[in-house]
């Protein structure tokens, strides 16, 4: 029998993993506990990261460079986000809560400005540029290229809002939907692949923790959980009756 913090950790890890997996059986106390722990722990985790990785170095590191020592120089302009941030906190005082709106306005406006440019460039102009064809390639590749162009055209026609999808427009947009559907099917297939891979990763962990080295964590927890779940579902069906 080995006993140290790592072993406790492994037991907790296996317990948490199996608790979440128990959801597959249905909503049950194990899942509820792990779900609630997850929400609490992750909120604390994210808050700690936000403070120590963002606000502390990036804001206070620039306003009080000597005290924080995050490698930034003093930049007084960072008073503005500090003020906007404090505005945000005024949410707690109802009479001043309208100030938070200014902080939100800053963010929304900024996002609009930045994304406008980025998307015009990366999604529109880059894709237009890519439609050029290289005729020195083989016949099959040229055919594929033309097919891609036709697909892009017809799928874009599908997105027209101010035209009724009837007649020629309707027919073309129908073809467009077919291309979109093939794309969605492909995404779906890839997603299946990815999810299975992650499950494999999880199961490998569980398998490796079922050895003597970890005091047989997986089998012991698994069996006791199945037993408790069985009793629980038996009891709850009794009470339902």
């Amino acid at each position, binding site marked *: 029998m080995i006993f140290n913090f790592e072993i406790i950790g492994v037991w907790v890890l296996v317990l948490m993993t199996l608790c979440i997996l128990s959801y*597959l*059986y*249905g909503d049950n106390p194990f899942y509820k506990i792990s779900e609630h722990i997850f929400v609490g722990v992750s909120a604390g985790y994210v808050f700690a*990261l936000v403070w120590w*990785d*963002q606000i502390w170095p*990036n804001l206070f590191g620039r306003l009080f460079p000597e005290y924080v020592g995050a*490698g930034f120089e003093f930049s007084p302009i960072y008073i503005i986000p500090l003020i906007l941030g404090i505005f945000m906190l005024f949410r707690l005082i109802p009479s001043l809560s309208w100030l938070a709106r200014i902080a939100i306005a800053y963010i929304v406006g900024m996002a609009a400005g930045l994304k406008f440019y*980025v998307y015009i*460039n*990366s999604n529109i102009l*880059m*894709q237009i540029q*890519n439609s050029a064809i290289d005729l020195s390639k083989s016949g099959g590749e040229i055919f594929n290229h033309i097919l*891609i162009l036709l697909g892009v055209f017809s799928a874009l026609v599908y997105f027209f809002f101010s035209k009724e999808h009837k007649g020629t427009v309707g027919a073309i947009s129908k073809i467009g939907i077919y291309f979109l559907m093939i*794309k969605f099917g*492909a*995404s779906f297939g*890839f*997603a*299946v*692949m*990815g999810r*299975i*891979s*992650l*499950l*494999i*990763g*999880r*199961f*490998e962990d569980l*398998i490796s923790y079922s050895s003597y080295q970890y005091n047989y964590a997986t089998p012991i927890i698994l069996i006791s959980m199945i037993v408790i779940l069985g009793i629980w579902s038996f009891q709850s069906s009794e009470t339902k009756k």
Partner: protein
Amino acid sequence: MERFFTIFGSIDRRVIFLLIGLSVLIPLIKPDWVELPIKIDNNTQIVYDSIADLNEGDRVLLSFEYGASTKPEVHPMAVAVLKHLFSKGIKVYIVSLWPEGPIMAKLAMDEIIASNLFNIEDGKDYVMFDYKVGGSIVIKNIADDFRGIYKQDYNKIPIETLPIMQGIYNVQDFDFVFDFSAGVPGNAEWVQYACDPKEVPLSSGCTSIMVTDAIPYVESGQLRGILAGMPGAAEYEKMVYEYLSNELVNNNKYINQNANIDKGKAFARMSAQSVAHLLMVIFIILGNLSYYYERRKKG
């Protein structure tokens, strides 16, 4: 027959869950029950060839953008690519744009060092940098001014004193960029902000779900091939394994002669993956048959 399918149509989804679980678990416990040959995908081949074309002493920037939750898919790629690079005597520079990136990079490097395949030295053959906040902004900065953003390496050594950092000022000083990505920021950002405008060859290994979004870049040549999810990793592992075994015989000076080469993690997982996919397809077919009978019954 008909009754069977109608019963199947109303099957409890927990039965499906159980079968999927078993289809993954059994091949993992008993890997030799199902063994399947691996065929190399075209895009994997392009990645392999692009790296194989690099010369000794070239510099390659690796970017780690995945975390523990997507580790099963992407991590084996990282290990295989690192092995491939080191066996060719290429200098490796590692940056991370995800908070968990450095942990993953460290794990991958530890695995390489533990395998005792190569005589590599931190700061001379490879260098690692810590995580930087900012996503695409960091990529932009790497493209313009590498030293503006990275002042010291992972071990807090100033980069001016590192021999490997000589002559590295922006992304154009690298001969190749390889990105391991599992989301945003990821390969799309590398294409948009650094490698396409600066014309540096870029390749990527990513999670399966990202592939369809990345494929337009592959088709337009902005990405040199792509390693797609765990199968991509397994294919690459296989190619690197064959290459290393071959080089070992040819007395490659970068490979330790007494080391033994392992096949890699993803390779072993492929049978579980295959069985699960097959089961899924069977479900789909059965589901459709029961749907057909159901509809016929309703008229």
